[in-house]
């Protein structure tokens, strides 16, 4: 199953990189969401995947019974999802503010910090 997920992550990363290289900041944000998803899947896959039971300990038992999924990457991914959301939301607000201030979403036209004449 890792093979399937690896290929899927590759597809997501490729799409994300292409979007992030676009001039429109919104497309960059789309790419950001995709690449967060891909990263989460990567962490998840690296813990090995099986169609096993969730990592829960049944009543009366001291440890999980039978085969259960790897709990460690799940914990990592769970926080990563929330953090990724925080990052995305902040980036969205930034883009929103940039549009408000500069009147464009085209990153090529956002030259306040590095004006064109500076580079000559």
């Amino acid at each position, binding site marked *: 199953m890792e093979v399937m997920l690896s290929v899927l992550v590759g597809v997501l990363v490729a799409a994300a990189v292409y979007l992030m290289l676009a001039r429109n900041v919104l497309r960059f944000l789309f790419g950001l969401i995709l690449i967060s998803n891909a990263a989460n899947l990567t962490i998840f896959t690296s813990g090995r995947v099986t169609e096993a039971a969730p990592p*829960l300990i049944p009543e009366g038992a001291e440890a999980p019974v039978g085969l259960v999924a790897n709990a460690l990457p799940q914990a990592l991914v*769970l926080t990563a999802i929330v953090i990724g*959301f*925080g990052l995305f*939301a902040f980036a969205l*607000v930034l883009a*929103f503010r940039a549009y408000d201030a500069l009147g464009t979403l085209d990153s090529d036209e956002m030259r306040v910090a590095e004006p064109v004449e500076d580079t000559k």
Partner: protein
Amino acid sequence: MNSIILLAGTRLLVALLLVFSVFMLLRGHNTPGGGFIGGLIGATGFVVYAIACGTEQARQALRVPPENVAMVGLGIGLFAGVMAAFFGDAFFVGQWLFIGATETEKGLPLSSVLVFDIGVYLVVLGSILTLTFALEEGAD
């Protein structure tokens, strides 16, 4: 968004979502759930409310500014960690109190871990609402 159905359903839905979020928070230690999920569900409830009735209404329903909720949550989380120090343990070592415990039953478990999870719940809820409300108000 002035759908009457949405408006009517929202109040019920929001109440349900909030109760559900607390339920998810409390049961999280033994079954799927926990502070992150609970906080997200609670936030979703308020976001739906804000979409239906406007952020002004949602803010009133929340009563406290969401950024304060997040900060209080962070404080509670920190307190849960510091609590261990009162019992002579290292930072963030879980402290447990079993009310009505017997030989076979553990009774009602209360712990600093639960306190910490409540902190997580509040931070997630408050942060998301801070963002969403600000964005919606800013976009108007």
